[in-house]
């Protein structure tokens, strides 16, 4: 095994910049690692060997020519398969997009390319980002590197697993209800959902437009900050993109100082349903924060118990409309056009029935129903009101504290197949992450240790007010340093070798 794959993104970039390693060597080391372990992990749906080596070679040439390299130049990255990349298959984990090669780059992809980041390939995910286990991928599940019989979280299980398995130091995820943070929690990695509007959604195949947000997956808080700074910023192609300065997330990660900060523990995100070991590691982290000079108080967000129900009306409603374009007419799968003399509606119906998996169909039907005339006010309208109440809970909480914290997920990684037939149990994984999406505020998950009962990673979530993403990195980096000194080495080194 090459040492290059054990480096952080920051260390890799420094090695490439100094000439200690070439970008091509770095890329090759990761491609070799993928060849070695991905048959078992199945983090990738597509590996772009030629493209990655060419991008790496371009970085090396630029360096040789004396060009100033950007902070992540030559660092490999795994791209969630929900982001378009020109000419590279983009399936969103769905059969209905099999074979589709987008003619354009998402804004995130374009910014990564411009920064000299080396895109290794596309990562596995729950179909159209619907799920918490990556089991809803049409191309088979991803396995958790900590225990191959367990789920890596979802929907971005492929991105989190790729980072945890040292197949890439960085990955892009997208988070609609926890799809970056929950996989980070169960794989012992760092994942950040930035403020809604901080990172362009142009080229992110939409699940729920008002909730979706792309963000970084990494092994350290600083690496996540470097990636965050690379992809964030206003994009005229996304009307919901925030037009203002990007908070100094890298500076915050380097500062790592919680002295005098007020930190709130969300009362409603604990207790029943939370695994004992998860709660124990969370409580230890609270003690560390207090020890570092933060003032930790309990804060109540009384409307959070309604968040899950509101989310599962808003998301399916938007999703039923967003997924309407997948009809076999212009791209992707087309089914049954030669069977009899079908009408265009029949071909659309056959294509959608064959192309979408059970969870996608379930949510399309739920959303179609919720938006129907006569039900709109009772469902979608009411859910939007709850959404406003959740935002008010956050606003009130942030009057008292600088950041909020909670466990990221109620449990550690569960077994593959364990919750596949019980959608409600699956949905409950996101109970702590969904409120941030409904309110549009940023959230981070970072490893808080291993649960004593199963020796699996536990995630701690930090939430901050909108456009105060830098607070996540400041608190996260401080906590990361304290935890590291407790354990003596990075948590991922505890993972069984693949």
């Amino acid at each position, binding site marked *: 095994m090459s040492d290059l794959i054990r480096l952080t993104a920051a260390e890799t970039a420094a090695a490439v910049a100094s000439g200690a390693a070439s970008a091509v060597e770095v890329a090759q080391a990761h491609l070799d690692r993928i060849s070695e372990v991905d048959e078992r992990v199945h983090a990738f749906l597509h590996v772009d060997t030629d493209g990655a080596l060419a991008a790496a070679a371009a970085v090396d040439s630029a360096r040789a020519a004396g060009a100033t390299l950007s902070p992540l130049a030559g660092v490999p990255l795994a791209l969630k398969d929900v*982001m*378009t990349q020109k000419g590279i298959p*983009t399936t*969103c984990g769905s059969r209905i*997009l099999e074979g*589709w090669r*987008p*003619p*354009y780059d*998402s804004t995130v992809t374009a910014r990564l390319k411009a920064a000299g980041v080396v895109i290794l390939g596309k990562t596995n995910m729950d179909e159209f980002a619907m799920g918490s286990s990556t089991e809803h991928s049409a191309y088979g599940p991803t396995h958790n590197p900590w225990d191959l019989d367990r789920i890596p979280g979802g929907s971005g299980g492929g991105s989190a697993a790729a980072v945890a398995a040292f197949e890439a130091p960085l990955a892009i995820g997208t988070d609609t209800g926890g799809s970056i943070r929950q996989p980070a929690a169960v794989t012992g990695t760092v994942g950040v959902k930035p403020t809604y509007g901080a990172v362009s*959604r*142009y*080229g*992110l*195949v*939409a699940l*729920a*437009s*008002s909730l979706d947000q792309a963000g970084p997956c990494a092994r350290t808080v600083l690496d996540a900050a470097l990636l965050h700074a690379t992809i964030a910023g206003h994009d*005229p*192609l*996304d*009307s*919901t993109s925030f037009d203002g300065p990007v908070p100094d997330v890298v500076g915050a990660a380097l500062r790592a100082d919680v002295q005098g900060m007020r930190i709130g523990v969300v009362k409603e995100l604990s207790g029943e349903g939370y695994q004992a070991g998860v709660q124990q590691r969370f409580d230890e982290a609270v003690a560390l924060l207090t020890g570092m000079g933060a003032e930790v108080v309990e804060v109540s967000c009384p409307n959070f118990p309604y968040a899950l129900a509101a989310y599962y009306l808003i998301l399916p*409603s*938007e999703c*039923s*409309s967003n997924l*309407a*374009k*997948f*009809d076999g*007419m*212009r*791209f992707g799968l087309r089914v049954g056009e030669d069977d009899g003399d079908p009408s*265009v*509606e029949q071909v*659309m119906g056959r294509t959608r029935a064959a192309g979408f998996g059970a969870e996608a169909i379930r949510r399309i039907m739920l959303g*179609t129903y919720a*938006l*129907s*005339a006569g039900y*709109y006010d009772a469902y*979608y309208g009411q859910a939007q009101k709850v959404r406003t109440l959740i935002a008010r809970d956050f606003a009130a909480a942030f009057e008292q504290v600088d950041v909020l914290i909670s466990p990221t997920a109620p449990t550690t990684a569960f077994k593959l197949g364990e919750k596949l037939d019980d959608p409600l149990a699956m949905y409950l994984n996101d109970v702590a992450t969904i409120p941030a999406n409904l309110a549009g505020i940023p959230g981070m998950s970072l490893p808080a240790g291993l649960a004593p009962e199963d020796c699996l990673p536990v995630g701690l979530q930090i939430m901050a007010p909108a456009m105060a993403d830098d607070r996540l990195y400041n608190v996260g980096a401080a906590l990361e340093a304290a935890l590291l000194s407790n354990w003596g080495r990075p948590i991922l080194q505890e993972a069984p070798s693949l």
Partner: protein
Amino acid sequence: MSTAITEPVVPYDEVIAEFDPVLGLEVHVELGTATKMFCGCPTEFGAEPNTQTCPTCLGLPGSLPVVNAIGVESAIRIGLALNCSIAEWCRFARKNYFYPDMPKNFQTSQYDEPICFNGYLDVEVETDDGMRTFRVEIERAHMEEDTGKTSHQGGATGRIHGADYSLVDYNRAGIPLIEIVTKPITGTGKYAPEVAKAYVTALREILRGLGVSDVKMEQGSLRCDANVSLRPSPESPLGTRTETKNVNSLRSVERSVRYEMTRQAAILRAGNKVMQETRHWHEDTGVTTSGRPKSDADDYRYFPEPDLVPIAPSREWVEQLRAALPENPSVLRARVQTAWGISDFEMMAVVKAGALELVAATVAAGADQAAARKWWVGEVTRIANERGVELVDLPITPVDIARVEAMVGAGALNDKLARQVIEAVLAGEGSPDDVVATRGLAVVSDDGPLLEAIDAALAEAPDVAEKILSGKLAAAGAIVGAVMKATRGQADAARVRELLLERLGVAE
């Protein structure tokens, strides 16, 4: 295309005797913005299919819309010109339904928060008692995007049934549309078809004056759906309506409403119920045929478009746009009629020719109003009719006409030459000055060449010279004609006659 089914109809005067018609008009206007409503693709008409597209207007996965600011501005200006209130805050909404020429399978439109609402337009209709003004109330005007265009290939009819396959052109997908919807138009009585036509005519005039659209019904940049229903009396509740589409000319607006009234009357008189449906107008046969059933239960699952932010036009901006609106056409009419001192009859001729703005602009360019009217209502209208196009669509400008008239006034052109110049400008030979220069057209005012031509003509026809000398002055016409022919019409005929009589020493 023929229509197999001929439905029974009732004579129009009997319809009016038994029923009270109610209209509702929905007009879709394609804006003339340079780019589409939600992306940067060009909007040029008639380009190669699918060349004016991008991920957004093709609805590719991951693409997002961005609102065209000029589209919003045009919508507000239209609303203001139609006396509407302008929303302080409004949103786009998704109208969800599946159709192959709609790339996203939803149309980005507006639902319960239109940008313009509660307006009116006064239209004038010639009645048995002279001109009468009808007020058409506007329910709303909202922004949306156009769909692509499907053409069905193979089969006998070009329609979807029997076609071998279909082609979709997405160039039109995403072109900005403003949909203008009237409230139910009541109280028109027998003038319902005329009011419908007058409304669309007046609306088109306003839109053209605003410069927001080229409003060509034949090309589909202005499309009208006519809702018609009948009820026993003005006190009765509204009857069941039909919505007639494919109404592609002003004349069709009037004809289709009239036809639909006679058709519905026959159904009602027989004691049957009018079916609520979309109907298709056939210009050639003058009838409507059944389209798809339409009910109020159509469920488009509207919800606010989450990919776009709300539109909140500031009051300052709205007032700026209001202040900069062009003069309302009816106000303009009254003002110029007074200024020109012309009769109602003369004014009507100008308006009917659709020449009001053109004549006014020609006058503004320096021409006399009578001359400007003469050219636009006469010669230029004749050519427009020949070509079957609108006056404004001809490639000649008010400045051109003013220039031609100036040359006539200076004696450089006579009437006949002026007509030639106009025809040449319309044939694309350049400006009036270009045409005069390249064709060498000019009234021959030098007496020398004229005298030579007169001598030549006299030598050719000595018998005519004798007749003139013997006092038969009418015979002079033959010589004048010969001279005009020899000079290819460029001589001033009166001067030729004068010189001829001088030459022969004959007094008038």
